[in-house]
């Protein structure tokens, strides 16, 4: 951002999870937003722009949802640190928009009361008023505004109701900070906090000018990330905390109760509830979705639908993309004279990138589906239903969403684990997430299954389901091993909010899908493109005098590398050409298809490179005339791909998430080790049995 940007007011949007905060942010900023990450943690940082009602430019930042400034997870810690001005790369916001769920006013006002105390000019947004109205809750916004001393606006972000009023309030130059004080810190605790200020300054945790609230939230925190505090200083911080806890047992809990008492007093003046709770659509729907039997039936239906969409509905657009890249290749071929450059463009770039872009429809469907489940509130119900299963392996329902997302891609899956409070549960979830068969494995599965059972769609489908089940089962087994056997530490309590069902915001979901699709295409255009070119070059050079394409490939760098690892992979039934595919796959799994495509196109000359890859593989023979891709080799390869850790992006994100190289290496080791051992068993036992 340039210097000019700092003149534009920065407005933070804060609120509880499920308060409709992000929908409001999307409504205000639309496509004028940037998604990045906070350095050091993979918490998403969303900054956008909008214009006030008076045409003045405003910058908005969507901070992660939280229940309290007393941070429990990296997400909540980011909210606290940004509001306290503790993150150097994000300026302290000039104003705050507090978004609350109107039908859950007291609980939502808890965070608001903490935020207002920080002294920033604020606007209170009573969002989802329609839900409150349906429950016949009457909220006196004018009175609330008077008592808090800040503007209060009723909105319904999904429909855009109240947006103009909000923009008018955002345009005000004289936005006040509240005078409302919800809880008085007892004198003893106050003195203790004051006294802790000096030692905390020495540890570098706070600055000398920090307000009393900083030691309050740092010392009462259960925050695993402790951003801005050196690990070596954490002992001092814990010591200070223990001394306050010792002198004033339960002070933290007392403070919570005091806050709720003031909130209850406030609500008594502004909120009228009917004596009898009105039955909401949520209650009715939960009777079905959380029903002991119907709930499971529904769960199976949801996943069957997802499977149908991904494997069946996505097929047509995937064929189109395949066709377009094929035509593009043919067109370039017709334009250029034969030679290395044409070869590079057609066999390296176009077939390499095309082999990956083809999955765009599946990625879009997966994220659309996950976005819908999250936005409607169904995802929390899944966590509720799945909790008992997760508890058997030492995790809880909260690990379910990261794991489910990993079926699309482990990278957002690993990132979604940031909402898990306990460092141990979070780590276990991250370690097993890549065992979910991600969409990058799909092309490899499809190719090999097609080779195994040509023209038997039912058997193909069953085997595909079997592979997904194998990965899922393995994830549970390893979760059990890690959390019960290897790792120490407390598990997260399974405390989860079940938000009311709501109509999904199509705009927000499409925005999410667009952001993911863009990230996917950027990856295809950068990493995958680079690898494709590299593989093409490695299998083309060094040039030899021979006219024999096979000999040329064998002598190339890729051929040499394939030969080099052949002794290791031979017991699994693979030859050196598959070895080239495996080496390429360690960058990204989908490169397997690309690599084999490139390898075989290079070998056979470029005149027939648009033939389906599968036929080429089926026709491939060993020196003794036996086929290379026997059913046993295909099966061994399939199992290898289920288990092996082959994705640079995942390794990078796990490194960033866990802050050390230890865990990505552990992951690489246990997954690839299991892959090797199981594939070895399958091939050796199968061979011995005569298959």
């Amino acid at each position, binding site marked *: 951002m340039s210097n000019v940007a700092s003149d534009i007011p920065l407005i933070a949007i804060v609120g509880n999870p499920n308060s409709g905060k992000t929908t409001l942010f999307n409504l205000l900023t639309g496509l004028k937003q940037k998604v990045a990450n906070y350095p050091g943690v993979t918490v998403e940082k969303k900054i956008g722009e909008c214009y006030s009602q008076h045409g003045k430019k405003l910058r908005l930042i969507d901070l992660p949802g939280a229940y309290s400034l007393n941070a429990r997870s990296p997400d909540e810690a980011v909210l606290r640190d940004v509001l306290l001005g503790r993150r150097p790369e994000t300026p302290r916001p000039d104003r705050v928009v507090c978004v609350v769920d109107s039908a859950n006013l007291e*609980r939502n006002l808890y965070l608001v009361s903490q935020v207002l105390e920080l002294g920033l000019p604020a606007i209170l947004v009573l969002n989802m008023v329609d839900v409150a109205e349906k429950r016949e809750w009457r909220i006196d916004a004018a009175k609330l505004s008077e008592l808090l001393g800040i503007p209060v606006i009723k909105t319904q972000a999904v429909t855009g109701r109240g947006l103009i009023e909000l923009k008018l309030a955002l345009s005000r130059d004289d936005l006040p900070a509240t005078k409302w004080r919800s809880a008085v810190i007892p004198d003893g605790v106050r003195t203790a906090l004051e006294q802790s200020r000096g030692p905390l300054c020495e540890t570098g945790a706070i600055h000398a000018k920090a307000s009393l609230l900083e030691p309050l939230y740092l010392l009462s925190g259960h925050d695993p990330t402790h951003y801005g505090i050196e690990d070596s200083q954490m002992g001092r911080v814990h010591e200070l905390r223990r001394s306050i806890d010792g002198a004033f047992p339960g002070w*933290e809990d007392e403070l919570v109760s005091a806050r709720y008492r003031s909130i209850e007093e406030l609500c008594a003046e502004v909120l009228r509830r009917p004596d009898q709770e009105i039955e909401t659509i949520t209650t009715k729907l939960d009777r079905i979705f*959380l029903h002991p039997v119907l709930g499971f039936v529904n769960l199976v239906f949801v996943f069957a639908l997802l499977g149908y969409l991904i494997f069946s509905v996505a097929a047509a657009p995937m064929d189109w993309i395949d066709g377009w890249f094929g035509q593009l290749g043919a067109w370039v071929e017709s334009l250029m004279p034969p030679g290395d450059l044409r070869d590079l463009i057609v066999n390296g770039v176009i077939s390499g990138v095309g082999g990956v872009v083809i999955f765009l429809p599946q990625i879009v469907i997966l994220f659309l589906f996950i976005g819908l489940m999250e936005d409607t509130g169904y995802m929390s119900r899944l966590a509720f239903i799945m909790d008992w299963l997760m508890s058997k392996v030492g995790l809880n329902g909260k690990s379910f969403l990261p794991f489910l997302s990993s079926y699309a891609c482990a990278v957002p899956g690993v990132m979604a684990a940031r909402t898990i*409070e306990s460092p141990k549960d979070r780590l276990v979830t991250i370690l097993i997430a890549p065992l979910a068969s991600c969409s990058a494995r799909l092309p490899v599965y499809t190719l090999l299954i097609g080779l195994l059972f040509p023209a038997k769609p039912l058997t193909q489908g069953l085997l595909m389901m079997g592979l997904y089940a194998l990965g899922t089962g393995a994830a549970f087994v390893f979760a059990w091993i890690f959390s019960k056997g290897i790792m120490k530490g407390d598990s997260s309590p399974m405390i*989860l909010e*079940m938000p009311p069902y709501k109509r999904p915001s199509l705009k927000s979901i499409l925005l999410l899908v667009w952001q993911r699709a863009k990230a996917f295409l950027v990856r295809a255009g950068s990493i995958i493109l680079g690898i494709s070119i590299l593989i093409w070059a490695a299998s083309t050079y060094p040039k030899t005098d021979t006219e024999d394409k096979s000999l040329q490939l064998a002598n190339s760098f890729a051929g040499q590398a394939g030969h080099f690892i052949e002794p290791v992979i031979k017991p699994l039934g693979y030859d050196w050409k598959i070895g080239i595919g495996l080496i390429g796959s360690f960058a990204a799994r989908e490169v397997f298809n690309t690599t084999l495509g490139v390898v075989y196109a290079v070998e056979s000359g470029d005149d027939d490179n648009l033939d389906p890859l599968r036929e080429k593989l089926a026709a491939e023979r060993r020196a003794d005339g036996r086929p290379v891709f026997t059913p046993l080799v295909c099966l061994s390869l399939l199992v290898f791909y289920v288990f092996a850790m082959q994705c640079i992006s995942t390794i990078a994100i796990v490194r960033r998430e866990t802050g050390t190289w230890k865990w990505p290496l552990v992951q690489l080791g246990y997954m690839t080790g299991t892959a090797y051992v199981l594939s070895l068993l399958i091939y050796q036992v199968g061979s011995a049995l005569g298959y």
Partner: protein
Amino acid sequence: MSATTLAELPVGSEAIVQAMPTGRSALTRLREMGIVPGTRVRVTRRAPLGEPIEISVRGSCLSMRNHEAAHIIISAVGA
């Protein structure tokens, strides 16, 4: 009426929170989410295998396991 805990409250019943131990991280979070002494709570449902349970409190629904609920001492409404 003897002291009972939230974990023992039957589905559909209401109660008032009497006491909760202090200084436990998970219970502090439950307090922050609105379950403090004096709050009215109702058990909405139990998952098929007994856990987790769903609690209706202050207009929101929270789920938790018996492990946490067993620490929350309750008394009958109006007692």
